[in-house]
């Protein structure tokens, strides 16, 4: 009976969509990284649909296994607790993306429009549909409550200008996962000079998001 649960989800190894072979534990770590990064970055990050899908698979798989275990087994409750925790991270991650989409929708859609063919999309297909609908609904709403009562030449609002853009100059807290040398720090005032810092593995920093945005994407630093 215990061997139904001993399958540690090794079917993930056959999944070629992830570049490297990952253990389920590494997969969960990836999800948690993505969660924190998304929570703390000022802009919407690239979607991690692959991680999300794999985690969902793991959960479904585990759920199926648990169905086969007899009721009252202590193990089941432990597995359920773990699954609840993973589901929490998963939904919090997806939710913080939706919040950002709501906040920056015109800019998110604009970026999607200008994306070169073959470049990965920022949005998952579901998120893209959500953003488009959000834009349409906002426009309909504004039209219904205010704009249609305006003189004809004032009936349109340029959403791109009306909705604030994400501020990439925001400061963020980060922890370094892979050492980075010579990161250029722009001066804040005319009296200061630009200088470089080395980001040692494990060290923590407070600096502008713009400076380290590529390192967030590559996974070299973790926002905290």
């Amino acid at each position: 009976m215990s061997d139904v649960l001993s399958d540690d989800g090794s079917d993930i190894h056959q999944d070629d969509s992830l570049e490297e072979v990952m253990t389920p534990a590494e997969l969960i770590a990836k999800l948690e990284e993505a969660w924190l990064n998304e929570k703390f970055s000022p802009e919407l990050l690239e979607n991690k649909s692959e991680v999300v899908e794999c985690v969902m698979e793991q959960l479904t798989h585990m759920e199926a296994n648990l169905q086969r275990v007899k009721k009252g087994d202590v193990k089941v409750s432990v597995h359920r607790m773990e699954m609840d925790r993973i589901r929490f991270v998963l939904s919090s991650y997806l939710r913080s993306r939706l919040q950002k989409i709501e906040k920056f929708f015109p800019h998110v859609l604009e970026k999607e429009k200008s994306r070169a063919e073959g470049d990965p999309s920022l949005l998952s297909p579901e998120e893209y549909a959500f953003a488009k609908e959000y834009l349409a609904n906002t426009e309909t709403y504004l039209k219904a409550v205010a704009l249609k009562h305006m003189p004809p030449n004032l009936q349109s609002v340029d959403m791109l200008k009306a909705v604030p853009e994400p501020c990439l100059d925001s400061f963020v807290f980060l922890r370094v996962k892979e050492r980075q040398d010579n990161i250029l720090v722009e001066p804040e005032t005319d009296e200061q000079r630009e200088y470089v810092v080395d980001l040692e593995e494990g060290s923590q920093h407070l600096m502008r998001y713009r400076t380290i945005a590529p390192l967030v994407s590559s996974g070299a630093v973790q926002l905290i």
Partner: protein
Amino acid sequence: MPIVHNGAVTSCVFFAVSGNSYSAGTFISSTVGVPALTHSFCKQNNPAVQTMDPSEVEFLAEKEMVKIIPNFSLDKIYLIGGDLGPFNPGLPVDVPVWLALNLKQRQKCRIVPPEWMDVEKLEEIRELERKEDAFTPVPSPYYMELTKLLLNHASDNIPKADEIRTLVKDIWDTRIAKLRLSADSFISQQEAHAKLDNLTLMEINTTRTFLLDSLNCMYKLRSNLQPGSNKGKALDY
């Protein structure tokens, strides 16, 4: 007179005494399970930066491992996040805090407090923290959360629980006072970068919104100094 300013070595107290790095991705849940699942829907109090709720930081802390002494036997459990066990009565075994607390609540184990959760050790840390200007290395990246969790749910397994609570609170208060000092100097020196090793997530989290919002405001006020940067942009909606 122009001052050559090198922010890497500044008066900023953020600068660490020695590098005590945390293992990345050490993680946490509220007492049993997960923080308010609905809370993000009703919480959008901060438009300027993304925030984290203290209960979410606690959630991360609950991933830390702690030793327990079970009073039951159970084979290895193959969790998605890794294997646990086997469990044998009287034999210590490492489990994540979320499981330890759950088992404790069901009276299935005794929790062995982490080594640092000890009056003498904490007194030493407190004295050092008070003596140094910079942040000293903490015994655990989640010292505050773990103290709260373990003392609230397993105080009968922890000797001198009340003293420990007070000591940890003292350490916390000293560190938060330093954090404010650093934040003020970071703002007034208009720094572009600070190294803040040894600062824990919970500590960062209490001032995050305020500090980042302030830095944003300051950034915008400073961009006023560059004439012509944004001029006319606001006129044509």
